[in-house]
């Protein structure tokens, strides 16, 4: 440090650096009111990073990309990695990549949905193959593997609700796992109800909820549900996919089944 003290040139250089730092700090301070709303909007759009989930992957060069504001791109690249592992039937690699994707950037719903499908529909077969194949295993073991993976897929989807509480597709995906893999009719029914109540729900969510109620023998509940849904549907000629006429036909079937008096029956258009 002696040369630093003894050399006037060094003092001059230090003084100049000090002046520059002072000017820049003043500019930074003056510009804070201008940048503050933009910065607030910026961080609002970025969910908090789950560091615990990505800690294990930090050594893989992920940290700088995440810190530097490249979360979306990092997640895209991790998704690519997940797909590469999926093509190779690499269960551990796929699972790890899917977990990282969700932790790095939980905003794209498509990642959660497709990830859950990999977990719930593809991974059971990989595990069964690894255990010797379906023909070599008892049916109970095969069934248990499917159920386990379905539960893992549902847990994966539930994590997404933190960031997408209103997304009907997540509810629908959970409902399908409950119905097809776990035989949980009541649970599937409930999730289709939640899906149908969301602002961006597809038309079919309401119809499927009613059908599931009917399969549980809850005809009255199905009937009341369809009575609430039908008035909200556009006419068939405007949107055939809303299937307003089909819903009306279901209502009539239930009225017959419930043996309702004509005066009690639904009159479309009358409030």
């Amino acid at each position, binding site marked *: 440090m002696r*040369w630093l003290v*003894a*050399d*006037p040139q060094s003092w001059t250089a230090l003084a100049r650096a000090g002046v520059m730092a002072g000017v820049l700090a003043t500019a930074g301070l003056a510009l804070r009111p201008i940048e503050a709303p933009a910065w607030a909007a910026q961080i609002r759009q970025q969910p908090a990073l789950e560091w615990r989930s990505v800690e294990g992957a930090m050594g893989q060069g992920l940290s700088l990309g995440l810190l530097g504001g490249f979360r979306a791109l990092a997640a895209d690249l991790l998704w690519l990695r997940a797909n590469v592992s999926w093509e190779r039937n690499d269960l551990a690699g796929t699972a790890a990549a899917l977990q990282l994707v969700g932790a790095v950037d939980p905003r794209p719903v498509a990642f959660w949905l497709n990830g859950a499908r990999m977990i719930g529909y593809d991974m059971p077969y990989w595990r069964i193959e690894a255990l010797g194949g379906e023909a070599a295993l008892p049916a109970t073991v095969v069934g248990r593997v499917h159920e386990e993976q379905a539960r893992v897929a549902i847990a994966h989807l539930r994590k997404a609700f933190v960031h997408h509480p209103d997304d009907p597709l997540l509810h629908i995906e959970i409902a399908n796992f409950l119905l097809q893999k776990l035989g949980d009719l009541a649970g599937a029914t409930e999730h289709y109800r939640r899906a149908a109540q969301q602002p961006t729900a597809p038309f079919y969510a309401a119809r499927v909820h009613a059908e599931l109620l009917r399969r549980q023998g809850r005809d009255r509940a199905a009937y009341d549900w369809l009575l609430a849904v039908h008035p909200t549907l556009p006419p068939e000629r405007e949107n055939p996919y809303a299937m307003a006429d089909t819903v009306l036909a279901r209502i009539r079937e239930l009225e017959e089944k419930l043996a309702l008096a004509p005066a009690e029956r639904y009159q479309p258009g009358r409030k």
Partner: protein
Amino acid sequence: MAANKTDPAQRPPAIEIRRLTKDYPLPGGRQRVRAVDDLSLRVHPGQVYGLLGPNGSGKSTTLKALLGLLRPTLGDCLLAGVPGSDPAAHRAIGYLPEAPYFPRFLSGRELLRFHAKLAGVPRAGREERIAALLRRVGLAHAADRRVGAYSKGMLQRVGLAQALVADPPILILDEPTAGVDPGGAADIAALILEQKARGRTVLLCSHLLTQIEEICDRVAILHRGRLLAEGALDELLGRCGRQSLVVENLPPEELAAFEDWLAERGGRLHAVERPAARLDRFFLQTLERAERATEASAVGTGGGAR
């Protein structure tokens, strides 16, 4: 008494360096290297002034201080009365740096156009001037070739052209003939003398003493940053009042009679030497003879049919 404007020495100097001193700090800060030490000199309008010295004598430092490219530790430098550190002073100068590097991606023509625009040469007549300069320095055939493909000699020529592009009253040339063949060096020397004939002031650094001797009016000799000698060439070389006669076949006894004849008329025979032909003159003369012979044979073979 009114100043005699026709006498260059009476006019304000075109270039004036006053007690210039430049120190460079060494790493560590305690020691310094003195590159130029208390240098003062004046170059009057219309003079060709040579700055001589071995490598490291402070010539380039002096030129850079003159051009405001570095700050003097002490003293100052003026160009046409304006401090050299003031960019306004650069309106009056054209500068050729030592071993000039120019952007490789530009053609010769584009390079001159760039410098002409910077110097404020009016658009009207600019292209004609550039073309004329390129012809004058012998680069018309390579005007649209990229500078990166130029030989060292071509770089010197295009550098000279860019120094002249704004027709400045003062030229500062650092080693203008470095890397140039003798023919090219002779061309450049002729060009400098042309500028002198037009009343331009030239300050040039060179290691080629024979060239300095041919074209400079005054010289300064630097060594380790100090001025060792300065003055008119004839005075420095003691050539004032002397002539050289070259005679053939003069017997020794006639030589003694000739010496006596001189003494009677107040003169003195200073030295008797064998004159040696200068190699550069011999080289140029040989080339010229060869070119004349080539032209003559071409006329002879082609001129038969009339």
